[in-house]
């Protein structure tokens, strides 16, 4: 009824709408050369078609309902591409918002004499496009976060290699600040290395870690417990005086975890446990 006017306009005036809309998009994208004309045309045409279909079916403006799935998918896809092309979030929102003015112009031309209907229509279009623009921005943010998180993960894995000191003896020299996320990744790596290298002793050296908070201490202890369940023992080495104090103050119970001041000491213990000694030739 009220909404179908918009659908009819889109159907009837599609080519003008498209032209006007794309012109506005290009204005906003001005200096960017990396989105081809063809891409703009395809994206805009697809969205317009999807909008027409959905509005025609008398859909409400709850864009998260299943009726809007096609529109959401199109916008999500576009948004993700824009992240990878290095766009700003506002530019992705503008893709949707710049459709407002062309639609308003058409509405005025079509139902301009009827104030009531005109107002209803403009409200409908505004509410809808605002929601879609927000959705696009959310997907953009999430995609960007996932990208950054993936890159961080790769950096983390590269920066904390697990070293095999001897058959069955692993060392994990941790360097830099440990946050909750990084600690979890690092600990997973250690446990997997224990399996792949068939290690029964793992030395976790925290000489290069400036501070340890309760969460990190707990993760360390959980890793030691998990390694034990898998049949490997952990030694924590490199606990500097400040960290030792922090651990006491936080009331963290190291239980029966062996701790040594230096990695060298820890290695000595590990060798002894394996009934190995170092001799000169």
């Amino acid at each position, binding site marked *: 009824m009220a909404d179908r006017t918009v659908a009819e306009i889109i159907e009837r005036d599609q080519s003008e709408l498209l032209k006007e809309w794309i012109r506005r998009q290009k204005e906003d994208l001005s200096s960017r050369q990396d989105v081809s004309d063809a891409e703009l045309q395809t994206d805009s045409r697809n969205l317009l078609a999807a909008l027409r279909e959905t509005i025609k079916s008398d859909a409400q403006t709850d864009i998260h309902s299943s009726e809007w799935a096609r529109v959401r998918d199109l916008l999500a896809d576009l948004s993700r591409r824009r992240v990878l092309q290095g766009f700003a979030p506002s530019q992705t929102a503008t893709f949707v918002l710049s459709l407002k003015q062309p639609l308003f112009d058409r509405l005025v031309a079509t139902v301009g004499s009827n104030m009531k209907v005109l107002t209803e229509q403009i409200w409908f279009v505004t509410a809808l496009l605002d929601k879609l623009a927000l959705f696009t921005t959310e997907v953009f943010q999430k995609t960007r976060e996932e990208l950054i998180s993936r890159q961080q993960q790769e950096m983390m894995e590269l920066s904390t290699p697990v070293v095999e000191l001897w058959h069955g003896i692993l060392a994990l020299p941790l360097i830099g600040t440990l946050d909750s996320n990084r600690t979890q990744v690092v*600990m*997973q790596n250690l*446990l*997997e290395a*224990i*399996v792949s290298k*068939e*290690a*029964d002793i793992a030395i976790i050296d925290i000489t290069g870690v400036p501070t340890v908070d309760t969460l990190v201490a707990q993760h360390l202890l*959980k890793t030691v*417990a*998990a*390694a*034990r*369940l*898998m*049949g*490997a023992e952990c030694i924590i080495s490199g606990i500097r005086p400040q960290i030792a104090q922090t651990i006491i103050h936080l009331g963290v119970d190291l239980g029966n975890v062996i701790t040594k001041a230096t990695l060298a000491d820890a290695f000595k213990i590990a060798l002894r446990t394996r009934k190995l000694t170092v001799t000169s030739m």
Partner: protein
Amino acid sequence: MDKIPILRLGRFLLVTIQVDMHDRLALALQDDLTSQIVSTRAQGVLIDISALDIIDSFIGRMLANIANMARILDAETVVVGMQPSVAITLVELGLSLPGVRTALNVDRGMQLLRLSRASEDSDFDRRPIP
């Protein structure tokens, strides 16, 4: 109902758990193992859980029960091959599997069993004859 096969490896028994066990199967395994420890006079039990991707409190208790019952029957138990994600989850769950010894794989588990039997035998030898 299928039963979990128990293999004999010299003086030890080897159980490989490869299915998603329902409770009845787990209880049946406990019973089977107990009677086999007695009938074969086994000195150790190896439980290979490398194929288990879930250990909940029921399975955890089963493992602890097997270890306890075996000990009463003078056999040591070693659980081998726990997957990292299972180990992490168990720690989070708060299950510590008390009384259950663990090793990385069957080889290491066997070494552990032999060592523990060897030390026991030598202790026994050193006891004075009354």
